[in-house]
């Protein structure tokens, strides 16, 4: 067992352990942050396998963008920020069975398919560059690459329609577009946030907003 083997086993343990903590933690925000650890360990595994470009894409897209998207999703809901006791789903057992079965199928397929396929990693150094990836992407996998752009387009339009009810035209506008904050609205910072904040203030004037604005003024 070489040092690289040892490192990749340790990274795998970290990735799986953090993945278990994502679903086991009692705090929603911590779940997103454990996901960062899991994705980071996965990026480390890619590095050990000399897939440098994929590793840094993993850091850029998953650790950078996807986790930001998840944190945004948490911020948009009324999820509490501290410990919540009602996170356990009633489908826990079923979910566990499905997860273990999926993992079993994947591991069995990989082990049976690649049991004797050994590639000495030392010979593969440099094969994970963006040049190699670009070669296989634009010679063999052009159609999936173009299909990805359609996927991104569909998701972008979907996000716009769902998040801007004044554009989609579905449902009553003020209630859906401007949900009443649970405790107090965010003290808006920056010009854009303040402009949006003032637009919101005109829609629903109440005492809480007045308190916040006076505090903003004091801070200035």
């Amino acid at each position, binding site marked *: 067992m070489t040092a690289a083997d040892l490192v990749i086993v340790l990274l795998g343990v970290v990735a799986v352990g953090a993945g278990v903590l994502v679903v086991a933690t009692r705090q929603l925000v911590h779940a997103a942050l454990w996901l960062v650890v899991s994705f980071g360990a996965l990026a480390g595994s890619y590095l050990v396998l000399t897939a440098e470009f994929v590793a840094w894409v993993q850091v850029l897209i998953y650790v950078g963008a996807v986790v930001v998207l998840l944190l945004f999703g948490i911020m948009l809901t009324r999820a509490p920020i501290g410990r919540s006791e009602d996170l356990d789903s009633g489908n826990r057992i079923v979910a566990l069975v499905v997860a273990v079965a999926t993992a079993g199928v994947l591991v069995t397929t990989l082990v049976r398919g690649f049991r004797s396929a050994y590639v000495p990693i030392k010979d593969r150094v440099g094969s994970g560059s963006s040049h190699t990836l670009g070669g296989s992407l634009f010679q063999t996998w052009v159609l999936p690459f173009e299909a990805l752009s359609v996927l991104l387009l569909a998701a972008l*339009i979907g*996000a716009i329609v769902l998040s801007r009810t004044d554009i989609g035209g579905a449902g009553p506008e003020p209630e859906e*577009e401007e949900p009443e904050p649970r405790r107090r609205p965010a003290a808006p910072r920056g010009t854009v946030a303040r402009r949006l904040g003032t637009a919101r203030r005109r829609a629903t004037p109440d005492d809480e907003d007045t308190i916040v604005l006076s505090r903003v003024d004091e801070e200035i």
Partner: protein
Amino acid sequence: MHGYYGTYLTVVVLFAIGAAIVGGAFLANRALRPHRPTPEKLTTYECGVDPVGEGWAQSYVRYYVFAYLYVVFAVDAVFLFPWATVFSAKGYGYVTLGEMFVFLAFIAAGLAYAWKKGVLGWV
């Protein structure tokens, strides 16, 4: 520190040194400072005013588009790197050049839609 793993070992060592400096600074601070907390000292500092309510606030769903636009641009940029290394090489030529512009055109259509609907109103 030569070879593929050696260079990344340098990166790991650099991260370890950085973590040691930050952790050491906090540890030295904790060891040297006096520790006499009062409830007033333990409240969140908000420019001298007592904090009101909690630190949690729900934000508006319209900001989700901005986060998602960031994802779109990140994925977009990531595919430009491998493309940039190969499109002028032998055996690729104008077809590869055009493929990337088809890809960009799809995403530009999404951006044009967003522009038309006024989502990009902050620019």
